[in-house]
């Protein structure tokens, strides 16, 4: 009997255990995605739920999404959930390659247990949008980190206004890099998940608010949010400054006419920023693209005065390849042009790419552009004759700011001569040059690569050598989508390539010199540095800092008036930390009558605030010089000695469309009610 009893006990234990009534650890953990969307529009959200069984620790799951370049690092909120709990999955802002992403849930108790993958098809936005590409560079306003930063991105803006008159930001991507703390996660970059474009007047001033998934950027009140002021020259182009107080910067905002090929088969490019040591850096050159999008070209680098020019890239066996852009026109360059920097690009159109340095490891930051040298499939051939009478502007950045502008003529063979203004008083200390005669020799090879070397006896300030990189004669550098201003087409990029200064700029052909031709409505903008200090708030810790402004106005007979946005968070121009949306600008330009398109004036800048939130600042008077390229484009620089310096442009304002104006009127009406 005893043996029989024991036997029965063993059998019972075996059956009980086999039935799973004993320790659950003997049963394998399973993870099943029990709820997930099958289709989502870009940037929209859907609920996901995972069920976990046989997990004695009740550890739940962590969610993941592939491919990483499409999904980013913030796809799920929360990123991990208990069994049966809901997380919200946000679709990427761009349609990924293949049109879908894959999501999985992984056991937090046992990382080797992963759910079956679920495929989510990503579709286009459900509302009609237009895409715009933007870029800017400037100075951050963070305690102990007033770093130079670069940002480039793309936003999809609804084509139909909301009930309040604003245009919704439906989706977007960007890459932000300050070289110290903040580099957008790669390969995804930051996702722009929302925001708005609000026109503040019918002339085309607007505020662009972007909500991103990167809480490190923006100010402490609205982490992840950036606010830009825009001055539209037309429906497709605006000058842009960041003015949310977290940073100040200048750049351009342009309609994206294409997200993919065909693109030019050769490009000229410049980028500028700060290297890992904190010195200013400029890189420039030309490159050609083969049928496989491989880049080969010639590179010039000026890294804090250390100049290396004429370097062929890539150096075999390395390769450099323009990657495939996503549905928003964002892509990455595989391999490095300079051997260290990783660059992402945003397609503006068939002939324009914005370039931004995105590697966190190198500790540097830069942004710039590549411009086509001719239509797709053509192989342009350039020479010294490609550059004739031109107007130019070259400037540094907030670390070592200087500004130069001028007009020159060439003999189309090897010599140039002209007149220019140059202000390096904040960087080198020299007195500004006003209407200084300069000249020298220049060369341009067949690929549009060359240099301007200033003569020993007729330089312009401390400028010694400018690298020159010629662009498509049919391309408008300042306003790439503008095909109506033939006078503004063509020209070249400049980059200072000597040990004295580091900066970049452009030259455009000069077709008008009379100040009377520079008439009508205009947009204007500038980026500069000043030495004033804020008298409001804690004791100042800064001595030379950046300010930026954009605005809209008109010129008639040399009389210039305008209103706009002044971003002066450091008080470097106004001695008051200013984020003004109603700054007033006025000047009375006087033609120097030398027939070179040069005129001068004092520029008055003022603003009125509602006390006591922000006190008014005294009217600031800046000495400026304008060089006119054509009836719709001019460069101007600030020539004040030891107090401030800026460089910028004045561009014809042909107006935003009537539909936009109606939206402004609608918004104004709504606000009144």
């Amino acid at each position: 009997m005893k043996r029989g009893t024991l036997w029965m006990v063993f059998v019972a234990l075996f059956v009980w255990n086999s039935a799973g009534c004993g320790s659950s650890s003997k049963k394998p953990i399973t993870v099943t995605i029990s709820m997930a969307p099958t289709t989502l529009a870009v940037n929209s959200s859907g609920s996901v739920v995972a069920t976990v069984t046989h997990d004695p620790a009740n550890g739940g799951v962590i969610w993941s999404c592939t491919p990483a370049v499409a999904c980013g690092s913030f796809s799920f909120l929360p990123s991990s959930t208990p069994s049966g709990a809901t997380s919200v999955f946000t679709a990427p802002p761009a349609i990924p390659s293949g049109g879908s992403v894959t999501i999985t849930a992984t056991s937090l108790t046992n990382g080797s247990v992963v759910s079956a993958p679920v495929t989510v098809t990503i579709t286009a936005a459900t509302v009609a949008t237009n895409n715009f590409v933007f870029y800017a560079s400037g100075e951050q306003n963070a305690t102990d980190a007033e770093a130079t930063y670069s940002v480039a991105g793309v936003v999809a803006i609804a084509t139909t206004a909301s009930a309040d008159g604003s245009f919704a930001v439906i989706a977007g991507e960007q890459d932000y890099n300050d070289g110290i703390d903040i580099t957008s996660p790669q390969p995804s970059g930051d996702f722009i998940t929302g925001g708005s474009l609000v026109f503040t007047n019918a002339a085309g001033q607007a505020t662009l608010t972007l909500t991103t998934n990167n809480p490190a950027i923006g100010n402490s009140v609205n982490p992840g949010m950036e606010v830009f002021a825009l001055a539209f020259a037309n429906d497709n182009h605006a000058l842009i400054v960041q003015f949310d107080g977290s940073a100040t910067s200048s750049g351009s905002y342009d309609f994206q006419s294409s997200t993919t090929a065909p693109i030019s088969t050769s490009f000229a490019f410049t980028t500028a920023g700060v290297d890992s040591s904190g010195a200013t850096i400029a890189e420039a050159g030309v490159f050609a693209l083969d049928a496989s999008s491989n880049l080969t070209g010639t590179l010039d680098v000026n890294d804090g005065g250390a100049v290396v020019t004429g370097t062929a890239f890539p150096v075999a066996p390395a390769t450099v390849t323009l990657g495939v852009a996503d549905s928003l026109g964002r892509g990455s360059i595989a391999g490095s042009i300079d051997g260290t920097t990783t660059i992402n690009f945003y397609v503006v159109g068939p002939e324009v790419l914005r370039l931004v340095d995105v590697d966190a490891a190198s500790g540097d930051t830069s942004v710039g552009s590549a411009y086509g040298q001719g239509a797709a499939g053509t192989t342009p051939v350039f020479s010294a004759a490609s550059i004739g009478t031109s107007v130019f502007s070259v400037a540094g950045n907030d670390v070592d700011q200087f500004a130069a502008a001028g007009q020159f003529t060439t003999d189309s063979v090897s010599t140039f001569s002209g007149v220019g203004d140059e202000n390096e008083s904040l960087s080198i200390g020299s007195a500004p040059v006003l209407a200084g005669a300069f000249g020298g020799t220049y060369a341009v090879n067949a690929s549009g690569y060359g240099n301007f070397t200033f003569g020993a006896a007729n330089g312009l300030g401390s400028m010694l050598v400018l690298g020159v990189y010629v662009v498509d004669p049919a391309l408008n550098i300042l306003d790439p989508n503008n095909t109506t201003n033939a006078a503004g087409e063509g020209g070249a990029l400049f980059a200072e390539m000597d040990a004295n200064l580091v900066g970049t700029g452009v030259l455009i052909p000069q077709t008008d010199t009379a100040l009377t031709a520079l008439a009508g409505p205009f947009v204007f903008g500038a980026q500069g540095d000043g030495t004033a200090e804020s008298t409001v708030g804690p004791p100042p810790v800064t001595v030379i800092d950046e300010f930026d402004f954009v605005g809209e106005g008109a010129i008639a007979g040399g009389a210039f008036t305008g209103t706009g946005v002044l971003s002066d968070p450091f008080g470097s121009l106004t001695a008051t930390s200013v984020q003004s949306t109603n700054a007033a600008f006025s000047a009375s330009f006087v033609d120097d009558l030398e027939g070179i398109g040069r005129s001068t004036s004092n520029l008055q800048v003022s603003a009125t605030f509602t006390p006591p939130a922000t006190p008014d600042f005294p009217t600031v008077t800046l000495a400026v010089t304008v060089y006119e390229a054509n009836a719709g484009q001019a460069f101007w620089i600030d020539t004040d000695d030891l107090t401030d310096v800026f460089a910028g442009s004045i561009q014809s304002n042909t107006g935003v469309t009537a539909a936009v104006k109606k939206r402004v009127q609608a918004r104004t009406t709504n606000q009144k009610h």
Partner: protein
Amino acid sequence: MKWRSSVVGLFAVLALCLFAVPIHAQTTVTTKTAAPLRYDISKEVTLTGTVSSVVKKASPETKMMAGSHLIVETTSGTVDASLGGFALRGMGALTVTTGQRVQVTGVMKKIRDKEVFVTRLVQADGHVYTIRNEHGFALAPTARERATKSEAKGGQL
């Protein structure tokens, strides 16, 4: 005749060498000195002295170079040591007070008819602060802020 042939041959070789430059040399930068070098490191000197004044911000009216300055009393006289815009700001900034002994390395330049010591390095309290690079470009606080934050993170481990 032989020596003439040799000399002619030598000249021929030299001529070949002279003309055998790379094709891209046509556009290679040649650094003619239209303007003096911003910072000629071959003229760099090191001075030792006592700080008599720390000018945190040069007033434009004084026509001093923009940025901050140290006024240093040396055995050979008073030196205006220009520090640029970043030396006294940000993490890891130069900390120096009046009466402190310092060693400054840089180049003496005449700017606006004034002798200015364009400072590249400052040694104070056993620390060497890099103010400018070897070409005289002021260095933003980027590198030292990154280093300071990196050290801080390490310290937390």
